[in-house]
């Protein structure tokens, strides 16, 4: 990137200021953590305002602020609208969150539920899917950090990515979920204000007419409401979002952490608040041709438009918004994935009688390990953000039906759940390469549904839900 909007010195200053802020908050908020429940689940006492903010801020990721513009740039009007359908995942998780809290009042992870509901093999299949997704998301977040710093300031991709990963690991390590949720509140305010300012300036400085005319001449397919790939993408993105939220421990750990009666309302309101953000963030990308911006890689389009429109001020704004969005998701993902590995792999497979101190120590070491592994995988920039992200769709969408049937139906059984996840993932991956990234989640979800229905029809299982509530979670059966 040659024509940088920010000098490297300003970029480093911003990185420093926000790094110190997040690290300080992590340390400060983490002082009151006394027990494992405090560290991993913020004492299970999170109220409505913080619960809503953390759900919204975590779902506004760098992918929302960076990949939504990319999808608008590649798939046009339907790209940004399709991305906003990711809100449906939060809305539909609202009733599930309430049910999860009832079924598993002392649970720690999504893995706890799958193990107790379906048994060991479905649990292991689920863990594999969860970990592939968690690493994919971590990598996409780390990559986004490097991309935005590079796009705006010309600072090397590796440097930006390293600093952002290190800061998020640092404050998650110090503060646990309490720090994650509290910083999410501040970050969500920054994100909403920043994105709205940017969209308003785009509209007032260029205007709809000029954007429309340029697109019609140079990129006509972006305005085409019958754009085939974009039409395929709509429900794919919706189901991808549903799969991400339904299976990921990021959302389950919050359901456990929220006060009784808060989860359902918090997820519903967060979904409504999140809905317009990708449309607003994506819209700015459509201004790129009108502004004569040459976009070297599609995932750089958002920062480039902001920088071009507002120069240094716009670049600083985008920098702060993306850094906040990145931090709010990275910390949540690190905390939730660490919980999953600690509870389901360390305690579940290797040290079933671990004490609370041993578990807390293991949890911290796992956060560092996750950060280092993500850093190593981010070093070679292997793909664009959207391509990497939607690769994960084949994995996560296969878990939707096993979870929904597992939560509500007695007849769903472990073997069927494991098979539906495996076959859904395999055929979803095939479709990713054979057709395109915009169908992988949809195909995976469809295959998984068919397998679940056949399995339920063939096997006459009768699960007793009370046995989950009565079980002692955190220990292998």
């Amino acid at each position, binding site marked *: 990137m*040659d024509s940088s909007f920010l000098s490297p010195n300003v970029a480093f200053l911003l990185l420093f200021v926000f790094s110190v802020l997040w690290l300080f908050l992590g340390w400060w908020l983490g002082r009151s953590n006394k027990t494992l429940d405090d560290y991993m689940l913020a004492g299970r006492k999170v109220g409505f305002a913080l619960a809503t903010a953390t759900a919204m801020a975590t779902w506004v990721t760098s992918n929302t602020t960076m990949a939504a513009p990319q999808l608008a740039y590649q798939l046009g009007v339907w790209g940004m609208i399709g991305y906003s359908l990711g809100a*449906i995942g939060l809305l539909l998780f609202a009733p599930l969150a309430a049910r999860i809290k009832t079924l598993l009042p002392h649970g720690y992870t999504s893995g706890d539920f799958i193990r107790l509901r379906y048994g060991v093999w479905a649990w292991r299949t689920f863990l594999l899917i969860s970990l*592939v997704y968690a690493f994919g998301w971590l990598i996409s977040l780390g990559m986004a950090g490097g991309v935005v710093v590079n796009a705006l300031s010309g600072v090397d991709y590796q440097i930006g990515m390293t600093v952002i990963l290190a800061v998020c690991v640092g404050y998650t390590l110090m503060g646990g979920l309490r720090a994650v949720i509290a910083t999410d509140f501040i970050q969500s305010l920054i994100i909403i204000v920043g994105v709205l300012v940017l969209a308003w300036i785009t509209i007032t400085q260029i205007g709809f007419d000029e954007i429309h005319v340029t697109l019609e001449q140079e990129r006509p397919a972006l305005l085409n409401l019958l*754009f085939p*790939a974009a039409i395929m993408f709509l429900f794919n993105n919706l*189901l991808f979002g549903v799969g991400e939220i339904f299976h990921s421990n990021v959302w389950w750990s919050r359901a456990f952490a929220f006060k009784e009666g808060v989860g359902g309302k918090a997820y519903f309101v967060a979904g409504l608040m999140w809905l317009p953000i990708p449309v607003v963030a994506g819209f700015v990308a459509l201004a790129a041709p009108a502004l004569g911006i040459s976009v070297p*890689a599609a995932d750089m389009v958002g920062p480039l438009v902001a920088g071009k429109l507002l120069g240094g001020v716009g670049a600083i704004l985008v920098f702060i918004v993306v850094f906040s969005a990145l931090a709010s998701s990275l910390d949540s993902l690190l905390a939730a994935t660490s919980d999953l590995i600690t509870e389901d792999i360390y305690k579940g497979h290797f040290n079933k009688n671990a004490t609370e101190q041993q578990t807390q120590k293991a949890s911290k070491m796992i956060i560092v390990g996750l950060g280092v592994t993500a850093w190593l995988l981010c070093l070679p920039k*292997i793909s664009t953000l959207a391509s990497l992200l939607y690769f994960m769709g084949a994995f996560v969408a296969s878990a939707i039906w096993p979870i929904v049937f597992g939560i509500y139906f007695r007849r769903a059984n472990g073997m069927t759940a494991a098979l539906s996840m495996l076959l859904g993932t395999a055929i979803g991956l095939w479709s990713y390469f054979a057709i395109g990234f915009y169908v992988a989640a*949809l195909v995976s979800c469809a295959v998984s*549904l068919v397998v679940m229905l056949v399995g339920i029809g063939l096997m006459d299982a009768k699960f007793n839900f009370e046995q989950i509530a009565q079980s002692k979670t955190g220990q292998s059966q």
Partner: protein
Amino acid sequence: MLAVAFGLLMVVSSSSVVSAAETDAITLQASESLSTAGYFNLSWDKSAQNHDFVLQQASSRGFDSPVEWRLGKTASFSMSGLENGTYYYRVGYWPKPQAWSNVVQVQVQHHSLGKAFAIFSLGALIFLVLVVVILINRKQANRGF
């Protein structure tokens, strides 16, 4: 498994080089020779210290009435939003290239609308089933186990 999964992502489709280069100064490549969604990436092997690049797009190999973009000093360009057709590209140094790169041909052939709506309908059906299952069972679940 994870390594295999990410390794698959690194597979890059080959570019299509149509004609021999007028000069081998710049080698232009496209991320794919057949695009089914109207977007692809163009990249070249030179980075300029003092000159911007210019990229031309035309619908014929002769580059009659080309569309032209001044690109700055970056060595790649993300194209999107193209309708069905065959497009030709070449890159050179701004403002008047003494020599152009090789010519790259990319064919844009969107998926058929029939296929798109079939997949759309499948997605809509699954979504509808999901909403109905959750809403019906939510009421029952509220009454206990």
